[in-house]
């Protein structure tokens, strides 16, 4: 875990890399330097379109491009891609099941200094309720690259969630394999399962170490595809460990925690706790300070794990 790379960096690089192999068109709403689509723009200027600060037009326009056979990436901050343009995504892209990939960067509280107005903590919940929508929330740069290619190969709308903050590279590119809709068991254990997504994945692995010192053996599962959720891996974990903790950089309402809870309640109800932002708006600060203050660290996951084990 030596290197730290933001998943948005990996997104920009992946677009530029896969632009060679696939005929993709990339749209951005005046944020190409931040979303890193600029990397693609430099290499393929003819296939990059800046729409200006107009996300509603961008999403509906992406639908028009896709209706004419294009594979389109529409990029902005998560706040504007999922929030401001929700209804365009829902009606222009989701309803006709068009081949638009929404590259949403600056998701979550780790946006940092910009504060609450730009810290999108609702996007997974919003996007999850749109039929036909696939949602991927990569944990690191390796997974982000793989997610971009998987999104290109998948027919239909995909919401890709990336972060601003440089985060640890968890996966080994030589062995990493991405399968859309499949969770990955990163560590075994039978006392409790930590199901994490995005930048909470390395925190979950760290939490396992903390718990290990107390002879608590935690299983750690990485869920990169939040929709469709890998119900099998969750049910198996619930049966084998009897307790679940979810961890995500999102409101505890509507995100991974909700998706996992839905699977558990309908299949194998076991005690469960959610780590996430507890239905609050964010604020300005350094990303690490915010993650600490809002309870999004290994320590917080470990505390919830102890609690949920007591409920077994």
């Amino acid at each position, binding site marked *: 875990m030596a290197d730290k790379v933001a998943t948005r960096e990996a997104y920009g690089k992946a677009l530029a890399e896969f632009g060679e192999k696939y005929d993709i068109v990339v749209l951005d709403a005046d944020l190409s330097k931040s979303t890193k689509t600029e990397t693609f723009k430099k290499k393929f200027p003819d296939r990059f379109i800046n*729409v200006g600060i107009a996300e509603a037009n961008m999403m*509906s*326009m992406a639908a*028009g491009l*896709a*209706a*004419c*056979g*294009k594979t389109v990436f529409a990029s902005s901050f998560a706040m504007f891609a999922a929030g401001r343009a929700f209804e365009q995504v829902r009606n222009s892209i989701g309803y*006709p099941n068009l081949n638009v990939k929404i590259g949403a960067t600056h998701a979550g509280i780790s946006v940092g200094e910009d504060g609450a107005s730009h810290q999108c903590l609702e996007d997974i919940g919003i996007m999850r309720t749109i039929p036909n929508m696939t949602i991927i929330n990569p944990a690191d740069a390796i997974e982000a690259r793989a997610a971009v290619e998987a999104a290109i190969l998948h027919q239909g709308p995909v919401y890709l969630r990336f972060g601003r903050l440089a985060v640890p590279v968890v996966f080994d590119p030589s062995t990493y394999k991405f399968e859309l809709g499949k969770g990955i068991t990163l560590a075994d254990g039978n006392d409790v399962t930590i199901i994490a997504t995005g930048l909470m994945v390395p925190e979950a692995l760290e939490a396992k170490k903390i718990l290990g010192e107390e002879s608590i053996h935690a299983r750690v599962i990485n869920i990169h595809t939040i929709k469709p959720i890998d119900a099998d891996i969750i049910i198996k974990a619930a049966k084998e460990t009897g307790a679940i903790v979810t961890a995500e950089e999102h409101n505890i309402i509507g995100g991974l925690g909700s998706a996992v809870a839905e699977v558990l309640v309908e299949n194998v109800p076991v005690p469960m706790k959610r780590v996430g932002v507890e239905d609050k708006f964010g604020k300005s600060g350094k990303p690490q300070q915010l993650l600490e203050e809002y309870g999004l660290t290994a320590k917080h996951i470990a505390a919830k794990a102890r609690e949920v084990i007591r409920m077994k």
Partner: protein
Amino acid sequence: MDNKKIAKLSMIATKIRKHAIEAVYHAASGHPGGSLSIADVLAVLYFDVMNIDVQNPNWEDRDRFVLSKGHCSPALYGALAERGFFPVEEIKKFRQIDSFLQGHPDMKGVPGVDMSTGSLGQGICAANGMALAAKLDKKDYRVYAILGDGELEEGQVWEAAMFAAHYKLDNLTAFVDFNGLQIDGNIAEVMSPLPIDEKFQAFGWNVLTIDAHDFNQIEEAIHQAKNTKGKPTVIILKSIKGKGVSFMENQAEWHGSAPNKEQYEQAMKELNEQLAQWEVEYNGR
């Protein structure tokens, strides 16, 4: 345009109006007013202008049409059925549980529909995307869209207007159905989008204003739009909401309400009379 061609297009437009009334009546739901106002331009687009293949509705080089004012689906479905994309009998199932004719256009379910619309403002943006796709692929198909005048109150329309001019989408022709009425009343009183022509001019468009019910003017305007290079064209259609059915003309209350049996019969009687007159005209007296 010779008189025979005018008579022919008038017959088609009248049939589209009949289908629209038929659809709304049988559904007991839908939007007759704005459907009747765009019947003439739809007749010209689908029967004289657009390069389409009824046998292959998804032909990739076809001209595209986007009904940005998607609630006027009765007229679009009427035009598509009349053109042969699906049987005209389907019209009577409009908005019903077992029909593919959804309340608003559904590109996945209705042969000939190029974009799903209904949420105002989004169609013109999708049309931008289609026109841009043609430019990127160096194809010469053209994209047509019809907006409502009330729809111009949606901010997204002006995002699209800015974009189309900035990217010089001269393969895009937008029509504004300027009938002056929206659900809650006169557009000038509800939330004025006026002046429409100067706004589009300021956004960098080629602007033409015509009588929506004059086939010569419609054809000439579309011809001018095709010959205008470097900028998109908007054709402002000065139209009569409810055109062709006397008691629906210029009445905001017919924006989104269905006729009862008596009104339906009266409307069909009037349209059938118009159709008979045009048939006489067409066949020569």
